[in-house]
Structures are given as C-alpha cells and as structure tokens.
C-alpha cells in the first residue's frame, strides 16, 4: 500500500527516467528521500508486515509526531497501534513508566517502538531501558527476550542549549544486552530501522534532528519492503588511501565535507560510517587503517569515555596498532555543556575544518 509520499516519489522517478531518454547529460541521481520520510516509510511498512508492532510516545498519534516522523500513521492504523502517552517520565520514558509499559509489552511478546521526543528525556527512563530491557534476557538465562526499539533524536540540535543537546551513544553502547544504532542517511535509516524492528533484542536507535529534513539518494533496492541493513556492520562511505576518518550520524557528514576539502590538497581520506555503535565494527576500521596507516575518529559527543575513546582503545590493543604511522586521535565535541549563544555553540562542536587541520597535522602537510 503506497503512502502519498511514495506515490509522489514514484512519480518523480518516472519523470526522471522519462527525462533520461531525451537528455544527453548524465542521468539525474537516484530517487531523493528525506531522512524523515525514510523513517516514516520504514515504520509504516513494518507495522503493516507484523501486527505485533505498535508505536508509543508523546504526540506520536494525533499530533503526527513531535518531529513528524510518525506522520500519517495514526490515521492509517488507529488508536490501538499508535498510542499517545501523557508526558510522564518513569511511566513511559520521559516517562519512565511509559518506557516501562512498553518494555513489559515486549516481555509479553509484542513489538513496541518507543519514541522519545529526544533522548535527553530518556535519562528519566534509563532504568527501564538498561535494567529491565537490557538485562532481563541474561538474568533469565535466555528465557525472556525483549524485542523493543527505543528511538528518537539524539545529540546536538540547534540552539536548544545544555539540557537538550547531549549525545547518549556512549552511555547505551556501554551496556551489554543492548544493541545500539546511529544511522546517517536515508538508506541507513530505512534499512537499519527495519532491522531494529525485526530484531528480537532491545535496540536503541539514535536519530539526528538536524538530518531529519535532509534529502539523500535512495536506491531501488533500498525502497524494497524487505530492505534490511545488518546491524553491527559499518559502511565505507568514501574509499580513500591516505587517512581513515571514522564517524557516526551527523559526524559522517562532517567527515565527508572534510574529505572533500582534503581531496583538493591531494589527500584521499577514507570515510567510514559506523552505522552501529554496539556491536562496533572495529574489523572494518582495522582493515582501513591497515591500508591508510592513519586514523581520526570524529564524533559530536563529549570526548571523555566516548565512542572515539573506545575505537582508539580497541585499535591500541590490537595488532592494528602496528599499522599506525602516527598516533590515532579523536575529534569530538568540546568537553563543555552546550551553550545557547550561536557562535559558542558552533565552537563547541567539531566542524569540517577541525578534521582537515587534524588530518594535515597527522600527515605532516601544510
């Protein structure tokens, strides 16, 4: 059943194909899809596929979602499968209780998708995410698995200040029992959200608010209803040979920008999109470093005990260390709470130029 968005997209595709036959220039790029629509279509298809899948969260139903990711779903599936929850912490998640309710429903065999308005609010509910959802399978010696997805925007947005800008990637990736995904573009979001919903274990799905409205090309394959990307496998977004840049989510964007600039200086950077934080695909990173001999990890989150710290530690402990010509380093958010003032906010987050300068330093170029 095609949504209105899909129909429009197919219409666009048809017009692109039609244009191709008459054009002598290179064919237009593959279909474009915003991250928001990618998530929306994945949710829609998975709800259609499996009746046990349902969504709970604040403003997900009648409001169409705080960030409109669930737009149209309540109209299509109704009250039973798209549930608005009151703004309560422990109960739901920002609403610990709400998250608790969703987790209980998963223990009883349903497949809930718990939306957080942002993951900052999940701190109130984090006991349910980690202690109830994350650990129950192990504590029950493999009896009660918890097939739940926790999703919502994570990390820095724009101008929302300290309490609404934290990246929780490291917090959740820290815990065995959880799977943690941090997708980048629309294909990532489609394939990984579907994988997360189909996964029998608790999955934390960290989206990015800034990327919701951004369009990315989506292949035909990615539009298929059964398009699933394996959790725990990174992707080489841009092959290169002089230096490895490894990142997740928005930082992939930053790294690709930096790579473009470096290319102008004759440096071919290999950009790895982690896609998942747990499992963390260090094998792909190791293979890349064996080729490039230089590594920079790029992230927006805080440096202390962060994702970059983990990547570097693993490289350090393995024989990949011996492939490094220079110490591996991290480019991260500054170790400060997020300020509101615009120029300070920009200075608190890594920019492409920061990655470029770091690469030049490591490669000893002017």
């Amino acid at each position, binding site marked *: 059943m095609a949504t209105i968005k899909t129909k429009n997209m197919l219409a666009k595709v048809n017009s692109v194909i039609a244009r191709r036959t008459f054009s002598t220039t290179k064919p237009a790029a593959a279909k474009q899809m915003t991250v928001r629509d990618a998530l929306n279509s994945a949710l829609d298809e998975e709800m259609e596929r499996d009746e046990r899948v349902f969504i709970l969260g604040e403003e997900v139903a009648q409001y169409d979602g705080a960030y409109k990711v669930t737009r149209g779903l309540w109209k299509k599936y109704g009250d039973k499968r798209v549930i608005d929850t009151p703004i309560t912490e422990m109960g739901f998640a920002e609403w610990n209780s709400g998250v608790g309710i969703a*987790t*209980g429903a998963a223990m*009883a065999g349903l497949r809930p998708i718990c939306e957080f308005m942002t993951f900052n609010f999940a701190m109130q509910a984090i006991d349910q995410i980690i202690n109830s959802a994350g650990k129950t399978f192990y504590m029950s010696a493999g*009896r009660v698995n918890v*097939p739940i997805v926790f999703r919502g925007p994570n990390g820095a947005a724009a101008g929302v200040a300290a309490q609404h800008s934290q990246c929780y990637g490291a917090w959740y990736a820290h815990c*065995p029992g959880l799977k943690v995904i941090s997708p980048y573009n629309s294909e990532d979001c489609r394939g990984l959200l579907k994988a997360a919903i189909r996964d*029998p274990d608790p999955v934390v799905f960290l989206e990015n608010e800034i990327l919701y409205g951004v369009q990315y090309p989506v292949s035909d394959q990615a539009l298929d209803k059964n398009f699933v990307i394996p959790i725990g496998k990174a992707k080489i977004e841009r092959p290169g040979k002089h230096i490895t840049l490894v990142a997740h989510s928005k930082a992939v964007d930053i790294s690709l920008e930096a790579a473009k600039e470096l290319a102008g200086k004759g440096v071919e950077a290999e950009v790895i999109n982690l896609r998942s934080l747990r499992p963390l695909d260090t094998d792909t990173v190791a293979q890349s470093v064996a080729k490039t001999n230089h590594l920079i990890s790029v992230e927006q989150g805080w440096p202390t005990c962060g994702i970059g710290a983990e990547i570097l530690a693993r490289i350090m402990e393995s024989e990949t260390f011996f492939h490094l010509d220079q110490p591996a380093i991290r480019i991260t958010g500054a170790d400060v709470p997020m300020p509101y003032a615009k120029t300070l906010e920009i200075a608190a987050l890594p920019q492409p130029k920061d990655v470029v300068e770091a690469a030049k330093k490591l490669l000893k170029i002017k």
Partner: protein
Amino acid sequence: MLPSCIRTVCKNQIRSNKALGLISKSGYATEATFETKPYRLHRLEQSPSTTVTLTKEDAIKYYTQLHTIRRMETTAGNLYKDKIIRGFCHLYSGQEAVAVGIKATLRPYDAVITAYRAHGWAQLMGVPPLGVLAELCGRQNGCARGKGGSMHMYCDHFYGGNGIVGAQVPLGVGIALAAKYNGTDGVCITLYGDGAANQGQVFEVYNMAKLWNVPCIFVCENNGYGMGTSAERAAANTEFYTRGDVIPGIWVDGMDVLAVRECFRFAVDFAASGKGPLVIEAATYRYSGHSMSDPGTSYRTRDEIQEVRQTRDPVTSFKEKIISSNLVPADEIKKIDAEIKATVDEATKIAKADKEIGLDELSADIYSLNLEPRIRNVDPFTHLVHKRIGPAVNFK
C-alpha cells in the same frame, strides 16, 4: 447461604471462624463456610463476599501451598546463614496467604509480576522446589541456571523477580496492555510493597492504566514496613487502596487466604470483563527483616512479631480452621507436613550438592540474536564466545 441467620445464631463461632457446612458420613465435612473480615472499598458499590466456602480438596491444596512456601523460606534463611546463598535474600514468611489466595483465582493465561520478595510466587507459578533452591544457591538446576539468583526467577506467565523498587509496576501494566492488545481477557497481577507505593512511576502508570482501561490489578502488599521505615513514617496517606485516586480499590485481610481468594475472584472478574484496573491493598506481615541482612528488630518490637505469629499466622490459622471445621483430619495434615518436609529436604540436598554452570556460560544469552563477532573478556588477549541456551520465548 444464610449469612444473617448465621450471624445472629453463631456470633461466637464466627469470631473463632468455626465452620458450618455439609458433614459427610465419616463425620468429616466435604465443604465448610467461613466469615472473613469485612473489606474496605474505594469507589466501589459492590464488595467481595465476606462469606466464603471451602471444599476439602481446596483446603488441602491451599494448605500444601502455604506450608510449602513457609518451609522453603525457612530453608532459604538457613542456607543464607550458612553462606550458601549470597547477596540479597528477601523472605516471604508471613505473607504466604496473599500469593496463595491470588493464585487460586488465576486462569492459566493470566500473568504475574512482582518485586524481589518473589520465591513464593515463583513456586506457585510453576518453578519446582529444586528450581527455586538451586537458583538461590546459584547452581545449574536453578530456574535461571544460577545466573539470576533470588531476585530474578522467571517461568511461564511469571515475569519475576525484579530488583529495582517499583520498576515492575510499569512492566506489569505493559504486560496487561499486551493481553488486551491480543484480544484476550487475561489480566496481569502487579505486586509491590508499601514502600514502593509512594513512587512516582506507580502514579504515572495508575494514570495510564485507567486512561487506557488496561486489565492490570495493582496489588500493594502492605506488610507495614518499607525496609526499616514504617508505613506511617513513609506515607502521608496510608490507605494504599485509595491511592489510585479514580481507580477503584479494595482493602483485604492479607493474612486470611480465603479472604484474599474471595477478593481476587471479584478483582479478576472485574478486570477481565473490561472494567479496567483496580488497586488492591493486602494487609499482611513479614516475620523476617526486609532481607537477610536486616534482623528486623531495630524498628519493631519482638512482641509485635510474636503477637502476629500467635494470633494471625496465615499458615497455622488456616490449619486450625480446616481442622476445627472437620474439613481435614489432623493426622492428614501431619502426613502433608511430613511429605512437604521430605520434598523440601530432598530438594535442598540436591541443590547444595549441585554444580555451578561452566565458565563458558559467562557469555551465554546476552542476546537472543548475537551480532557481536567476539565478546570482550577481562583482558584483550583472549575473547569470550557467545552461546545460546535458553528458550527466548519472544524470539519469533
């Protein structure tokens, strides 16, 4: 049933819970009738009945369950003192009537979730004595292979066994929501104590359960103390059965298994017929301290504990009831006692001698679908291998 007639004619007998009923040829009854303490109601017009009947068959069944839990908990206490059980151990002695009374009313597809004072519930929901005792001792025949311990026992329709105070209450609402979602009339019995009853998350889910008409029966086991703090010192409103506000509530004498059963016949029917949640307060008592590390005498007097044991013990008072009503002869009770002792002693012997699972199971069942190529060990030089052993009931 002629309740008013009984009341006028047999006032004294009622007070001492003597029974009136059918007498068989041998002089023993096949059925007996008793009176319970009255229930207290909140936003309810109808009440569970204070007149309850008991068949001989049920008398034996409930007595066996009550006494088994009592014996198991005493055994657990001793194993803890011998340092064979480690960590936390929260005993249910004194509260048995609540669990046995509730279980008597559940259909096979109803669910139960409770906090950490869970050994009695685990048994009633289907974990055999060895499964409980071996789990407490951390051995491989434990119901969670020794990986969960006292606070994390699970079986069909029983969701533990939860260590974080109050966290099980939202989970219970979720389980009840699933029953409704699936179109069954199943309910979820969601238990918590007087301490947890003041938690914010409980009130959040009261609101949602009522708003969405979820078949969750909230049960506050008020044993008078949240660890070392009496209910009066912790709660501005100690009428826990009213704390659900617009949710109807019932107070029941939790030391009387028949009162509990009658109350929950009402409650299960209420929730299962789509009338929404209830908050039941079962007034009960625990003989032990909060856990084995709490002697339980610094915040209450020994006299108080003795008084409950002598006048309101759920096991012995039930025993007296069924003997004096001629429902079950005293020597049959003796036989049951001996059988229970033998069963529990045997299970204890096996549990104590049982081995722990192998170290290879350290990294078993972290995920039902493991995607990690290697599980990190204590050092970076060797790695662990993930294994799948348990049934993963929600896998498909």
